[in-house]
């Protein structure tokens, strides 16, 4: 797909994010906006997924013969839901139910409501990379050469389980796994270097035996290029870790450059100001 077309989709996804969070006056817009380009690049261009003749997506839990994506930092559910809906897993109109009673779009993603596209619950941090490793090893046992992608936050790197998984994946040569860290430098209580300094994450993962790549997560051309390179590298005995630099709140000027919009909903005026910056390309739900 053309980069400009992907950028157009990402603009619609960003509209969906702020509208979802505004409608229920809760949720996490900052990280969602920052990761919009990555998820659009994955689902609309780089991931090999199964589609129906009418363009909607096929979903079955086992996902044999197709790439899988796991969202470990489940609080950025608005971007996940929007991209799943816009890529054909369920109707975009369902985004209006986000975080409301009896919705399949729970505050954090869950399989419990059988929402197409979700394969694991996430929200309690630090678990997604381990799940992705298991799914990747199941693919190897099944002789399935498709890839498994997982996205984590940089604040999430505080969790000890992440480092259990970091040690395991190279040891077991899980080379069909592509992990991405959203390196936005922010977490709830402030900048990551103030809350709990991650220092050089690349050096840490490299020391465990990972293949390290870097990506500008808010430059669609770079997103697509680096994801393609990661696929090219797969099968070489090492898992890949992409350190993805993003701006929390990317695409909405007043939400950028601060952790303030990590988990705060815009009011009516702020919603209008945000939407004025984001062209409606696919039609609002």
């Amino acid at each position, binding site marked *: 797909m053309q980069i400009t077309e992907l950028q157009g989709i990402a603009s619609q996804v960003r509209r969906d994010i702020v509208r979802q969070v505004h409608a229920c006056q809760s949720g996490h817009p900052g990280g969602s906006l920052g990761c919009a380009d990555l998820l659009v690049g994955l689902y609309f261009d780089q991931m090999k997924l199964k589609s129906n003749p009418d363009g909607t997506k096929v979903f079955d839990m086992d996902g044999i013969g197709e790439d899988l994506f796991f969202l470990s930092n489940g609080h950025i559910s608005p971007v996940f839901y929007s991209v799943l809906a816009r890529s054909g897993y369920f109707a975009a109109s369902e985004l209006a139910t986000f975080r409301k009673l009896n919705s399949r779009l729970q505050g954090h993603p869950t399989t419990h409501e059988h929402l197409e596209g979700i394969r694991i619950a996430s929200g309690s941090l630090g678990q997604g990379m381990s799940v992705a490793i298991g799914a990747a090893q199941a693919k190897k046992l099944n002789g399935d050469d498709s890839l498994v992608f997982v996205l984590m936050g940089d604040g999430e790197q505080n969790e000890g*389980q992440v480092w259990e998984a970091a040690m395991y994946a190279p040891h077991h040569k899980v080379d069909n796994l592509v992990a991405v860290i959203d390196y936005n430098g922010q977490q709830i209580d402030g900048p990551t270097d103030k809350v709990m300094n991650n220092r050089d994450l690349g050096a840490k993962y490299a020391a465990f035996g990972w293949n390290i790549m870097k990506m500008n997560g808010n430059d669609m051309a770079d997103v697509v290029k680096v994801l393609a390179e990661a696929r090219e590298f797969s099968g070489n005995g090492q898992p890949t870790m992409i350190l993805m630099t993003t701006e929390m709140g990317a695409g909405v000027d007043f939400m950028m450059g601060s952790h303030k919009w990590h988990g705060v909903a815009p009011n009516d005026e702020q919603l209008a100001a945000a939407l004025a910056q984001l062209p409606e390309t696919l039609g609002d739900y």
Partner: protein
Amino acid sequence: MKKYTFTEKKDTRSGFGAGMQALGQTNPNVVALCADLIGSLKLDAFIKENPERFFQTGIAEANMICIAAGLTIGGKIPFATTFANFGTGRVYDQIRQSVAYSDKNVKIACSHAGLTLGEDGATHQILEDIGMMKMLPGMTVINPCDYNQTKAATIAVAEHVGPVYLRFGRPVVPIFTAPDQEFIIGKAWTVNEGKDVSIFATGHLVWEAILAGEILAEKGIDAEIINIHTIKPLDEEAVLASVRKTGCAVSAEEHQIAGGLGDSIAQVLIKKHLAPLEYVGVEDSFGESGTPAQLMEKYGLNAASIVEKALKAIARKNS
């Protein structure tokens, strides 16, 4: 009263190992994970015969549980194995979110449950695991009583679709159930019929309940002994049918009284058939170092305690 004898003692964990070896030969989707305790979990035969279906996680139980959850995506039936303390309490949130809430077909199979791991002491002697696991929606909780039953339960849980906690132990105990028995999850086994008191026992306490039944018989008391190997889902019909007949009950388990099998039985009796219930279990305490037999005696988890509680239950019924 049926008389039970035994010719051999074995550990229930070896029954698990035998079950895994059998599954390795019959079910290609069964895989195993272990957190640096292969020998203790008796996985050697499974690993030798199926090296590609075994995943060593090192001493990293949180990672192990979530990798197991991931392996189900693609149709595998993972058995995540370690000591009961590290496979439940240490990783409760991983089990809650990635296994139970995510409806994953993971089997959490743990040895060294309860006091009978012995000398290692209270850091390793989990007595809260049944309670924690049974509180999770959708989780099946099984605590078999001897080698043969553990082997049968291991094979049965692989066929069951859904998360399971399978709990077994370290010490050698009498083998008194049938080899190659049919194990039906959620179906209690009536060890001995009786009319004066119902004794509901699980795990290592089932043999003690049989011994208690013999002592009670000498006192002219006809005890009904029921093996509740599946604590969740509980066989409520079996519990109610027995207590309707006997009018009083004793629960017996190697676990805290709070949150254990006895509490599950109490809920049934409170809701559907009020009757005196006495608990044999650990009374709000941690364990300590000692031999298994010494510990079971000190903490009141043996035939003598079951007899004492049975007499008390009967006295309450008759008062």
